[in-house]
C-alpha cells in the first residue's frame, strides 16, 4: 500500500512538472532577473554593469516618469468607476427577466470579442474631430465636440468612454453575482414596503458588494496596465508615443519606450518594479477599504 502511495506521489510530481518548469522559467526566473537588472545599466550590447540604486534615484527625479504616473492614475480614476457603473447598469437591466436576454447579452458582449487593435482603429475613426460620427451626433444635439484624441484634456476621457463600450466580461460577472442573491430578499423587502430604489440601495448593492469588489480590484489592475489604446490611438495614432503632448504617456508606454525603443533595459526594469509595487499597494488599499463597504453574508 505504502509503495502504491509513493508511486502515486511520484506520478503526481511528474504530471505537474511542466507547470512547475514553466513557473520557474517564465515567472520566477524573470522576476529575479528584473530585480537584478533594475540595479544595472544594460543596453543589450555591452554586458550589464552594476550601478547600485542609480536607476531608482533617477526615476524619482524623472519628470516623464512623474507624468506617466499622473496619466495612469487619472485614467484609473476616470475609467474604473465609469466601466463598473455601466457594466452594473447593463447587468441590472438584463436581470429583469427580459425576453430575448441572450440576444441583448450578445449585443452588449460582442465589442469585447474584437481584437484590441480593431477597436482602436474603429474608435480613432469615430472620434475623428471633423468627419467622425461622434462629433456629428453631438453637433445634431447642438454641441461643438472637442478634438478628442488630439486634445490633451480630452484624450483620457475618450479612452474611458471607449472602455465603457468594452465591459462584456464585467457585465457577465455582475449578472452571475445577481443570480447568486436569493430572490427572497427582494420579496421580503417588497412586502415591507420598499420601493425599487430602496430595494436597489439596501438589498442589491450590499449583497452584490463582494462581486463589485472583485470587479473594482481586477479592473484597477487592468487599467494600470493599459497599453494598446495609448500606443495606437494617442494623437489620432500619428503623433508618436505619448501624443498629444505626453497626455497618453501611460506607465507601460514609458516602460516600453525605455526598454524597447531606447534599450535602457536596467531603467525599464526599475520602472516595471515601481509599477508592480504600485499595483500591489493599490490592491492592498482596495482590500483595506473593502472593510467599509463589502458585506459577506453569513452562511
Amino acid at each position, binding site marked *: 500500500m505504502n509503495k502504491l502511495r509513493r508511486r502515486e506521489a511520484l506520478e503526481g510530481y511528474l504530471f505537474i512538472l511542466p507547470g512547475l518548469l514553466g513557473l520557474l522559467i517564465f515567472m520566477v526566473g524573470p*522576476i529575479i*532577473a*528584473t530585480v537584478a537588472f533594475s540595479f544595472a545599466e544594460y543596453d543589450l550590447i555591452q554586458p550589464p554593469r552594476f550601478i547600485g540604486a542609480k536607476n531608482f534615484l533617477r526615476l524619482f527625479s524623472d519628470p516623464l516618469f512623474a507624468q506617466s504616473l499622473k496619466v495612469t492614475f487619472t485614467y484609473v480614476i476616470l475609467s474604473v468607476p465609469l466601466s463598473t457603473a455601466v457594466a452594473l447598469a447593463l447587468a441590472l437591466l438584463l436581470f429583469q427577466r*427580459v425576453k430575448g436576454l441572450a440576444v441583448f447579452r450578445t449585443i452588449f458582449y460582442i465589442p469585447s470579442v474584437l481584437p484590441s487593435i480593431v477597436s482602436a482603429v*474603429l474608435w480613432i475613426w469615430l472620434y475623428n474631430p471633423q468627419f467622425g460620427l461622434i462629433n456629428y451626433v453631438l453637433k445634431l444635439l447642438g454641441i461643438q465636440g472637442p478634438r478628442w484624441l488630439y486634445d490633451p484634456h480630452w484624450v483620457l476621457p475618450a479612452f474611458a468612454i471607449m472602455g465603457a463600450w468594452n465591459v462584456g466580461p464585467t457585465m*457577465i460577472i455582475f449578472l452571475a453575482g445577481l443570480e447568486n442573491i436569493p430572490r427572497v430578499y427582494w420579496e421580503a423587502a417588497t412586502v415591507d414596503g420598499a420601493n425599487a430604489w430602496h430595494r436597489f440601495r439596501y438589498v442589491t448593492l450590499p449583497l452584490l458588494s463582494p462581486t463589485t469588489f472583485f470587479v473594482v480590484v481586477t479592473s484597477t489592475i487592468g487599467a494600470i496596465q493599459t497599453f494598446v489604446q495609448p500606443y495606437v490611438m494617442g494623437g489620432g*495614432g500619428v503623433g508618436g508615443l505619448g501624443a498629444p503632448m505626453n497626455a497618453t504617456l501611460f506607465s*507601460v508606454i514609458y516602460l516600453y519606450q525605455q*526598454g524597447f525603443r531606447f534599450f535602457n533595459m536596467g531603467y525599464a526594469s526599475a520602472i*516595471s518594479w515601481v509599477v508592480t509595487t504600485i499595483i500591489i499597494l493599490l490592491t492592498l488599499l482596495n482590500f483595506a477599504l473593502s472593510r467599509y463597504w463589502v458585506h459577506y453574508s453569513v452562511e
Partner: protein
Amino acid sequence: MRSQRLLRLRRKFWRTQLYVLLIVLSAIYLVPFFWAFTTSLKDRGAIFEYPPRLFPREFRFQNYLEAFSMYPWLTFFRNSVIITTLSVLGTLLSSPFIAFGFAVLRFPGRRALFFLVLLTMMIPYYTTLIPRYMLFKQLGWIDTFYPLFVPDFFGNAFFIFLLRQYFMGIPRSLFEAAKIDGASTLRIYWNIYFPLARPAVITVGILQFMTVWSDFIGPLIFLQSPEHYTLVLGLNAFRGVYFTYWHYLCAMALVISIPPIIFFFIGQKRIIGGITISGLK
C-alpha cells in the same frame, strides 16, 4: 379590484420602458460596427463628406478586394494561423495534464504548489516582459514564432485552475477502479479523464484562441520583420501607412474580427461560463 388593474398597467408601462431602454442601448453598442461597415463600402470621396451619409450612395464591395491586394495579408494570415494553432495545441496538451495532477493524484505539498500556481495569475504581464525578452534574445528567438507559443506548452495558471475544478467534480472512485483494473495513470488520464473533461477543454481552447489571435503586445515585442507579422500587427502597420484610407482600414479591421466573432458564437455559453467562474472564485 381597481387597484389590481392599476398595478398591472403600471407594471406593463415599466416593462415597455425597460425594452425601449434596452433597444436604445443595443443600438449604441452596435453603432461602431455599423459605422465601420458603411465606411468600408464608401468611395474615398464619400468618407470625407459632411454631413456624413449613414448609407453610401453605392456599395463598393470591391473595397475589400482592393484593401486585400494592397498589403501581404495572406502572409499575415498564415503567420496568425500558425502561431494560434501551435499556442492552442500547447495549451490543450499541457494545462489539462497539469490540472489532472493537481486534482486527482495525491502527493505531499500539493496544496502549497497549487497556491503558487494561482499566485502567478496575480503577477502583471509587464513585470516579466523585459527579462522574458532578454531570455528569448539569449536563445536567439527574437523575430521567430517561438516566444509566442513555446510558453503555452508549460501550462497557464487560469486554465489549470479551471480544469482542476472540473476534474475534482469527477469521483475519485473512478480513478481507483481503473487502477485496480491495472490501467496506468497516464492511460487513465488520456482515455478516461481527458475525454470526460471535453466541455472544459473546449472552453479553454476557445478562450486561448481568442487571446492569441488578438494579442498585440507579444507580436509587437517579439516579431520584427514584416514577413513575420500577424494580422494584428499587419493591421497596425497598414494603419500607419494608409491612415486616411478609412474605407480600407475599416474593411480589414472587420475581416480580422471574423474568426473571433465566429468562435464567440460557437462557444458563447462556454465562454460566459468560464468568465462566471473567474468572477466567483
